[in-house]
């Protein structure tokens, strides 16, 4: 809630860090920092920075920390440059796809070197999960005529085992006194995945045994198809925004997304069970090499009056469907309520429900194994998820804003109609995943 009127106030008290960042950004861009001192100071003040530090932590599983710094500068002709740097680090355990068993299970690490044991009655988690990524985004937006705004952007991100490059372009057309806007956007991403241990051969059995034996490496290599694989994503987004009245604005989007290439998760296996439900084998999952996703999205924002404390309600709904047989509903609501003159509290509730992909199976039963596409990844199975939390923000004297967000996220995977085998009776086949999202943001 930075008050725009406060921007001018800031010039005298601009913190050193902002000036330093502005000069650093100008240097990166090659824009002139050698101009006269006065104009440099003015230019420096036009940068607006938003920064955030986020902690995402699941109970007994993955935990991630993410830091973002984004700078925005508005030039004379309403041209806007935005740059964003994101760094994140991930550690902890991630479900490997295998189903819980009444006895302990041994798995080979994705790299092929070493094994890990999951105790009886516990969901198998691969605890070697570790990754760091750096991401850069840039976006240039400018008016092309009185009613048309254009925007182009680029994306680069690098993880230890993943490289992604992306571009996007958008056009927006305002009409009806700028109360209505049509927009169209295109984006294209090209990703390369080089997982540790290489790309596993779909349906091949996970090699389990003595990884120090001389034959191990040769045997392990037989379960691999290569070192890396690619994926491309092309998105089309059509949008319509309508101001209803002084207190209300609405938005409607349709998006079409084509993903082609390697869409399998190389770290995920599927348990092969006997008729009693006891694991006989673990095979690497296999997903189609293309996916077409579509979605409709609608949003309404309403500014209540004094009687409801000038609260701003933000309600949105998304329906997504794809050619994997997945569909999902997402309802997201936020209420921004002013507290005193300079702070606000913002409760947030999000509800999400998805159906399973056609080829999702929590496990395969021997003999019945239909070895087409198969994945036991709960993230493409049937589930509901709820996020509940709140954000508290306070405007500081110099126009900066400090905010804190704390949320609880709970995923509840459900049985999409699969028969439960005798050995799995009483076991938690669809374990709940709980996470805490904590964030501190500072805008200056």
């Amino acid at each position, binding site marked *: 809630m930075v008050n725009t009127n406060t921007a001018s106030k800031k010039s005298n008290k601009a913190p050193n860090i902002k000036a330093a960042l502005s000069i650093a950004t100008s240097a990166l861009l090659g824009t002139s920092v050698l101009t006269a001192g006065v104009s440099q100071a003015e230019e420096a003040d036009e940068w607006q920075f938003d920064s955030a530090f986020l902690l995402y932590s699941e109970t007994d599983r993955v935990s991630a920390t993410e830091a973002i710094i984004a700078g925005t500068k508005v030039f004379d002709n309403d041209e806007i440059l935005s740059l964003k740097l994101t760094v994140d680090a991930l550690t902890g355990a991630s479900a490997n796809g295998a189903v819980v068993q009444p006895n302990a299970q041994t798995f080979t690490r994705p790299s092929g070197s070493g094994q890990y044991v999951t105790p009886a009655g516990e969901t198998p988690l691969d605890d070697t999960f570790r990754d760091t990524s750096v991401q850069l985004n840039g976006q240039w937006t400018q008016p092309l005529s009185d009613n048309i705004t254009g925007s182009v952007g680029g994306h680069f991100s690098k993880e230890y085992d993943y490289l992604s490059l992306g571009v996007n372009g958008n056009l927006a057309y305002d009409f009806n006194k700028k109360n209505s806007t049509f927009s169209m956007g295109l984006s294209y991403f090209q990703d390369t995945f080089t997982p540790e241990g290489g790309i596993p051969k779909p349906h091949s059995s996970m090699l389990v045994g003595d990884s120090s034996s001389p034959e191990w490496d040769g045997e392990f290599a037989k379960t691999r198809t290569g070192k890396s694989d690619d994926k491309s994503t092309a998105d089309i987004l059509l949008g319509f925004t309508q101001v209803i009245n002084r207190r209300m604005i609405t938005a409607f989007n349709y998006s079409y997304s084509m993903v082609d290439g390697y869409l399998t998760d190389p770290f995920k296996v599927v348990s092969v069970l006997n008729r009693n439900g006891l694991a006989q084998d673990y095979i690497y999952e296999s997903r189609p090499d293309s996916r077409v996703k579509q979605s409709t999205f609608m949003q309404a924002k309403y500014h209540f009056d004094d009687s409801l404390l000038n609260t701003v309600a933000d309600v949105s709904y998304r329906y997504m469907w794809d050619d994997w047989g*997945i569909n999902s509903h997402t309802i997201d609501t936020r209420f921004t309520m002013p507290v005193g003159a300079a702070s606000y509290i913002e409760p947030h509730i999000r509800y999400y429900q998805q159906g399973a992909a056609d080829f999702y199976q929590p496990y395969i039963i021997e003999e019945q194994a239909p070895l087409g596409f198969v994945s036991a990844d709960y*993230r493409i199975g049937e589930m509901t998820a709820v996020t509940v939390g709140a954000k508290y923000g306070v405007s500081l004297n110099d126009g900066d804003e400090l905010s804190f967000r704390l949320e609880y996220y709970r995923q509840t995977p459900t049985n999409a109609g699969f028969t439960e085998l005798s050995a799995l009776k009483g076991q938690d086949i669809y374990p709940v995943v709980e996470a805490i999202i904590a964030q501190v943001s500072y805008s200056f």
Partner: protein
Amino acid sequence: MKANKAVFKARSKPSRSKFNVAKTKLALLSIITLSLSACSSLGVEPWERDLLAKKEMALTSSSIDAALDDHIYFSKEASSGGKSFGGGGCGCN
């Protein structure tokens, strides 16, 4: 309301399909025209934008929160995008 009735009628007589297709098209066209003319009566004058201009009334009031949320839900659920690009750019688990 009239336009909706026309659609209903068109569907109820499948034997005269050609005529009905034309009728449906006409109905759709009227709906679109009606919606567009309805839109032009919606909205505000430039001097009535005091509330709409507030930061909390922006469709995306915090782009940083939106980016962080997108990253989390992209990694944990089968859906992404809708409000903005779904994108790739992540091998996240």
